[in-house]
């Protein structure tokens, strides 16, 4: 398996993401810098980590979405390579057009940092097949701009196509229809505000995020 973690200037969860990928797969993740024009060859998995890329200048994720490496990430996503964007990575995915909608300032205006309940809405995706449909898990969130917005037509389409992967089990940030994570049409791109990579081992106090990596990587290990 060959997994890559992209680091932008201001990413701060890139190491956590790399550790999670290695912890679950046993294979070190390849670290990629935002200024690289190309991704390593034959990648099986790409992760865009959390953080504050480019200091959140203009809009969260807007500058990172237009950095050189993102052209390669978009091309890989279109070829079907699984792409996981967490927190700032989710913002980068919406800004780049790989996922619909936008992530706005939290409705309560405060930075929110706590473990929140999440309902697994779709357990048929390559990222969520390790959970039961309707299962409630807990994952940490840590963001100021996680308020998911899309027009009602788009929201209806996402719900109708089973593309809402996770929904918050309580009010967190004002997101439309409590959406915490969405999939692209093909199901190989997932963006989510909560941090599965911060809940994979006993020392985290919570291992609910581990099943996401186990599901996403299970067919890749040994490949």
């Amino acid at each position, binding site marked *: 398996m060959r997994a890559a973690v992209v680091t932008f200037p201001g990413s701060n969860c890139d190491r956590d993401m790399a550790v999670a990928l290695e912890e679950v797969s046993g294979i070190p993740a390849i670290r990629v810098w935002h200024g690289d024009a190309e991704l390593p060859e034959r990648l099986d998995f790409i992760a865009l980590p959390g953080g504050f890329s480019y200091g959140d200048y*203009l*809009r969260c994720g*807007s500058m990172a979405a*237009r950095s050189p490496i993102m052209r390669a990430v978009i091309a890989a996503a279109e070829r079907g390579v699984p792409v996981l964007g967490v927190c700032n990575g989710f913002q980068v995915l*919406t*800004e780049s057009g790989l996922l*619909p*909608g*936008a992530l*706005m*300032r*939290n*409705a*309560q*205006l405060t930075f929110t940092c706590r473990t929140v309940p999440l309902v697994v809405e779709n357990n048929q995706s390559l990222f969520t097949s390790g959970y039961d449909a309707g299962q409630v898990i807990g994952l940490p969130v840590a963001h100021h701009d996680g*308020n998911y*917005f*899309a*027009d009602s037509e788009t929201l209806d389409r996402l719900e109708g196509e089973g593309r809402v992967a996770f929904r918050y089990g309580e009010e967190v940030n*004002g997101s439309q229809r409590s959406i915490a994570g969405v999939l692209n049409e093909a199901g190989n791109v997932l963006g989510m505000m909560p941090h599965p990579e911060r809940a994979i081992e006993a020392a985290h106090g919570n291992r609910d995020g581990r099943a996401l990596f186990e599901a996403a990587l299970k067919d890749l290990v040994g490949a």
Partner: protein
Amino acid sequence: MKVRVSVSLKPGVLDPQGRAVHHALEGLGFAGVENVRVGRLIELDVADDTSDEALDDMCRKLLANMVIENFRIEKLPETVGAA
């Protein structure tokens, strides 16, 4: 050529920041404020032959997020005799 781009949230998109500013204005005793929306102002200094299409493209591709925002482009008159 100086160009001013005003980026504002689309009507219907909730603006919690504007709401907080609204409350703060009321807290300061300003009565009669009906609504507040917070936007962004971007000033560009571009080559004189920059086309309207190029300016429009800059807004759509980067300066505004078309999912939630609208933009307005304003070309500013050059100040005659400015240093």
